[in-house]
C-alpha cells in the first residue's frame, strides 16, 4: 500500500480481509451506476439474484438456487420446531449449520460478485474495478442524465416552456397539446384519467385488500384484483417516465429549432422507433396474460388459497369456509411436513425427469434415423412415405392419443388379438399397470413425436456439406464411422437448442400423459399422485380436480420449486448454446 503505482493488494490478516471486503464493496458501490447499485443491494438479502439480473446469469442463478435451498431447509426445520416436534441435538445442529451457511453465502456472494479476481487498488483509494456491477458503458444512467439535461434546458428556455416543463410533472397530456401533439396528448391524458378513475372507484381498495388480505366476501378475485391495480400503476409509471423524457426532448428540439414535423415524428415510428411500435401490443399482452398470472401463482403459494377460501364453498359447508389470508411459508413447510405429499413429489419428480429425458432422446434419435433412412438413394417413393409420417404429425393429438388409448383398452383391439392368439388368458388393463403404462406411453410418444424430428432432420441432412462424405469415402470410412464423426456431430451441433426446448416442453407435456392414462392408478401409500403422473398432470389434478378439495397453494409451491429447477437448468445450457452466443454468425 501507499506506493504510487497500481498494485495488487493482498490482505494479510483475517481481520484485514474482512475490513477490505467491506471497503471493496463500498468502492464498487460508488463506482457503479444506478442499476448496478440496485443489483448490489438486491444481492445483500438475496445472494446471486442481483448479479443474475445484471447479466451474470449462470453463476448468479446457481448461487441463488443454493441459497434458496439452504434457507428453505432452515425454515423447514424451524417450522417443525414451531409445530412442537421435538428437536434433538442433531437437528438443532443442522439448523445452526444451515443458518451459518446462509450467512456465509450472503457475504460471499455480496463481496465475491462485486469484484472479480485481480482487482487492483489504485492510489486514490478507489478500486480499479472489473465487476459485473460496473457496466462497461459508463455513460450517466437514465435518471442522472435526465436531471442534468432538465437543469440545463430549463435554465435556457423561454418562460412558456418553463411553465410547460413544470406542468409536465403534474399532468400528462396537457403539455403535449401545447406542442400541438393532439393524438399523443389525448392518449396520455386519457390513460392517466382512466387509471386514476379506476384506482379511485375500485383499485385502491383492491390494493388495500391485497395487503391486508383477511377476506371472506369475495376472496376469489382479491389477489387478481390487487395485482391488476398494481400492474396498472406500474404501467402508468412507465408512461409517466416516457412522457417526461418526451416533453424535455420536445422543448429542447423546439429551442434549437430542430423540431420534427408531425409527419416526421410519425415516420420515426416506422423507422428507428419501429421496435417501440411493433413490440407494444405483444408486451402488453404478455404482461396481462402471462406475467400477471404467474405473479398470481407465486402469491398463492404464500396464502391459504384452497377450495375452502373460494366463494360458493359455504353452500356445501358454511362452517368451514375460511377467509383468504397470507400464511407466509406455511405451504412450503406443509409440503415437507406432510409425508405423503413429499413422497409424491419425489416420485413424480423422478418419473418426470425419466420421462422427459427418454421422451426427448427417443424421438430425437428416432427422427434422426428415420430421416437418414428416408434419405437413402435406395428407398423409392420418398414423397409418399414422408407424407404418411406427416399424417401422424398432422392428426390432432387428442385424436391419435384417445384412439390409441381405446386400442389398448381392456376390451380393445390389442387385448382381442392377444386373446385370439392365446398369448394371454385374461384381459390386461394396460393403462393401470404402472410400468407397462410407462413403456406404452414412451412408445406412443415416439409415434407422435418422431415425424416432427424426421422433418426437421431431413432438412438438416441436406445442409451437411457433401465433400465431408466424399473425403470420408476416400479414406475408406465405414458407414458407422461416417455417422459417428460426420452426421451426428454436425446435426447435434445444430440442434442443441431444439433439444433443450423439447426437453422443457416434455417436462410440461400434459396431453400425452393426460389423454392416455389420466395419471394412472393412485397408489394407496401416497396421497394424490398416480403412478404415471408427471408434475404437470399432478398439479392439474391438485388444482382442478382433487375431489372438491383443490390445494391451490400446495400446487403453487410445487410449481415454483419445479420452475426454479427447470428454468435454471435450461437457461444455463441455453446461454452456452450456439443460438445464443453466435447470434450474428450468419450475417
Amino acid at each position, binding site marked *: 500500500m501507499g506506493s504510487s503505482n497500481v498494485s495488487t493488494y493482498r490482505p494479510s490478516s483475517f481481520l484485514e480481509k474482512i475490513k477490505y471486503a467491506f471497503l471493496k464493496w463500498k468502492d464498487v458501490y460508488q463506482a457503479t451506476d444506478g442499476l448496478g447499485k440496485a443489483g448490489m443491494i438486491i444481492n445483500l438479502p438475496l445472494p446471486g439474484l442481483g448479479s443474475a439480473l445484471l447479466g451474470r446469469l449462470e453463476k448468479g442463478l446457481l448461487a441463488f438456487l443454493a441459497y434458496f435451498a439452504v434457507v428453505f431447509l432452515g425454515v423447514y426445520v424451524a417450522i417443525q420446531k414451531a409445530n412442537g416436534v421435538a428437536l434433538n441435538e442433531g437437528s438443532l445442529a443442522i439448523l445452526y449449520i444451515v443458518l451459518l451457511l446462509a450467512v456465509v453465502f450472503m457475504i460471499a456472494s455480496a463481496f465475491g460478485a462485486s469484484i472479480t479476481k485481480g482487482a487492483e487498488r489504485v492510489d486514490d483509494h478507489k478500486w480499479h474495478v472489473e465487476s459485473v456491477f460496473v457496466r462497461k458503458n459508463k455513460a450517466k444512467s437514465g435518471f442522472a442524465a435526465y436531471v442534468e439535461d432538465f437543469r440545463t434546458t430549463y435554465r435556457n428556455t423561454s418562460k412558456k416552456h418553463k411553465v410547460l416543463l413544470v406542468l409536465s410533472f403534474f399532468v400528462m397530456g396537457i403539455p403535449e397539446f401545447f406542442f400541438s401533439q393532439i393524438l399523443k396528448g389525448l392518449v396520455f391524458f386519457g390513460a392517466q384519467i382512466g387509471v386514476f378513475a379506476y384506482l379511485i372507484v375500485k383499485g385502491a381498495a383492491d390494493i388495500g385488500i391485497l395487503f391486508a388480505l383477511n377476506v371472506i366476501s369475495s376472496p376469489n378475485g382479491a389477489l387478481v384484483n390487487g395485482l391488476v391495480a398494481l400492474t396498472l400503476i406500474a404501467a402508468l409509471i412507465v408512461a409517466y417516465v416516457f412522457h417526461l423524457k418526451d416533453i424535455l426532448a420536445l422543448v429542447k428540439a423546439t429551442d434549437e429549432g430542430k423540431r420534427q414535423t408531425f409527419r416526421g415524428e410519425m415516420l420515426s415510428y416506422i423507422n428507428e422507433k419501429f421496435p417501440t411500435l411493433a413490440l407494444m401490443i405483444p408486451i402488453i399482452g404478455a404482461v396481462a396474460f402471462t406475467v400477471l398470472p404467474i405473479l398470481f401463482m407465486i402469491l398463492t403459494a404464500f396464502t391459504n388459497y384452497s377450495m375452502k377460501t373460494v366463494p360458493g364453498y359455504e353452500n356445501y359447508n358454511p362452517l368451514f369456509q375460511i377467509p383468504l389470508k397470507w400464511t407466509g411459508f406455511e405451504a412450503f413447510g406443509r409440503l415437507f411436513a406432510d409425508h405423503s405429499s413429499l413422497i409424491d413429489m419425489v416420485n413424480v419428480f423422478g418419473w418426470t425427469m425419466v420421462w422427459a429425458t427418454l421422451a426427448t432422446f427417443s424421438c430425437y434419435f428416432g427422427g434422426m434415423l428415420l430421416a437418414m433412412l428416408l434419405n437413402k438413394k435406395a428407398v423409392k417413393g420418398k414423397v409418399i412415405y414422408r407424407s404418411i409420417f406427416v399424417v401422424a404429425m398432422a392428426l390432432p393429438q387428442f385424436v391419435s392419443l384417445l*384412439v*390409441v388409448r*381405446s386400442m389398448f383398452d381392456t376390451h380393445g383391439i390389442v387385448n382381442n388379438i392377444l386373446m385370439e392368439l392365446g398369448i394371454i388368458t385374461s384381459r390386461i388393463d394396460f393403462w393401470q399397470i404402472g410400468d407397462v403404462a410407462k413403456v406404452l406411453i414412451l412408445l406412443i410418444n415416439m409415434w407422435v413425436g418422431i415425424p416432427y424430428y424426421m422433418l426437421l432432420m431431413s*432438412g438438416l441432412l441436406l445442409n451437411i456439406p457433401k465433400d465431408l462424405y466424399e473425403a470420408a*469415402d476416400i479414406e475408406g470410412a465405414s458407414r458407422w464411422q461416417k455417422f459417428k464423426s460426420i452426421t451426428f456431430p454436425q446435426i447435434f451441433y445444430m440442434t442443441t437448442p431444439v433439444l433443450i426446448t423439447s426437453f422443457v416442453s416434455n417436462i410440461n407435456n400434459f396431453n400425452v400423459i393426460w389423454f392416455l392414462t389420466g395419471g394412472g392408478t393412485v397408489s394407496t401409500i401416497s396421497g394424490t399422485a398416480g403412478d404415471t403422473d408427471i408434475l404437470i398432470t399432478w398439479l392439474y389434478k391438485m388444482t382442478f380436480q382433487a375431489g372438491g378439495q383443490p390445494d391451490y397453494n400446495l400446487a403453487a409451491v410445487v410449481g415454483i420449486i419445479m420452475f426454479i429447477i427447470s428454468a435454471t437448468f435450461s437457461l444455463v445450457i441455453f446461454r452456452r448454446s450456439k443460438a445464443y452466443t453466435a447470434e450474428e454468425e450468419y450475417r
Partner: protein
Amino acid sequence: MNNSVAVKRAAPNKAAVSKKKASQKRRRIFDAVWSNALTVILAILWLIPVIYVIIFSFSDQKFFIIPNGFLPTGYTFNNYISIFTQSDNVIKFTDWYVNTLILSLCNCVLVTFFTVITAFVLSRFRFKGRKFLMNVTMILGMFPGFMSMVAVFLILNLIGLIDSYWAMLLYWVAGAGLGYFVTKGYFDTISNDIDEAAKLDGASQARLFFQIYIPLAKPVIIYTALTAFMAPWADYILSSIVITSSANRTIGYGLYSLMTADHINTYFTRFCAASVVVALPIVVLYIALQRFFVAGISAGAVKG
C-alpha cells in the same frame, strides 16, 4: 453414402476394381432390400391407428368392443350423417367445428402477425433491453402454463369474457409475442446486406419488413401460420377452463368429453367419424405445405 465417387478416385488395378465392384453391388442390393423393407414396416406401424379410426368411423355399432374378432360387424355412413345432423346436449359437433374453425382462422392471422413482427424486431434491431427481453421471455416460457390458468380465468372474468371463445383468441394473441423463437432463428439467417441496400434506397423499416423480409421468410411464416392454425384444434386445457357451456366448446375438449366413461359406450364410433372429418383438411394442408415446413423448421429451429 456415395460409393461410386470413392471407386472412381481410387482405381488401382482392374482385377481388384471389378472384385470390389461385385461385392459392392451385392452390398448395395442387400442395403436396398433391408432399407425398403424397414421403411414399409415403419410406414405400416404409423398407419395402423389412422386406419383403425377410419374403419371404426364406418362401423354400424356404437362402441369399439367387438365380441369376437377385431373388425366391426357391418359398415355404414350413419356416423358421418349423424354427427352433422344430430345435436343433443352431449354432442354438438357442428357447433364445435365452426367455433374451432373461426378461432383457428383468426388465430392464424393474428398470432402469425404478432409472432413474426416480434421475431423481426428482435432479430433485426439492436436496442436497449433487447437481451433482457429475450431472457425474460425464455424464463416465462418455462412456467407450467396452466398453473396460471386460475388467474387467467379470473382476469377474463374481470373483463366479462367467460364462456366465449373470443376469450381463447384473446389469450392466444396476447401470448403471441412469446413464441418468436423459431421465427427469429430464421430471420437471423437472412443476410444483412439486403437491408443495407434497401436503406440506401430510402425504404422505411416498416416497408423493409413488409416488402423484403416477409417474402424472404416465406417458409418460416408458413410454419408459424400452420402452428397457429393448429393451436385451437389441439387445445384442451384452456377450453376446459374458460368455456362453460357445451355449445361454445372447441373441438378438442368437445370430442374428449365423448370419450369419458359416461359417453364412450354410445359415442365411440361417432367420435371416430368426427375425428376423420376434423383431421382430413389438416392433413391435406400439412402434406401440401410440408416443403415449407421443412425449410422453416430446419433453418429456424437450428438458430432459434
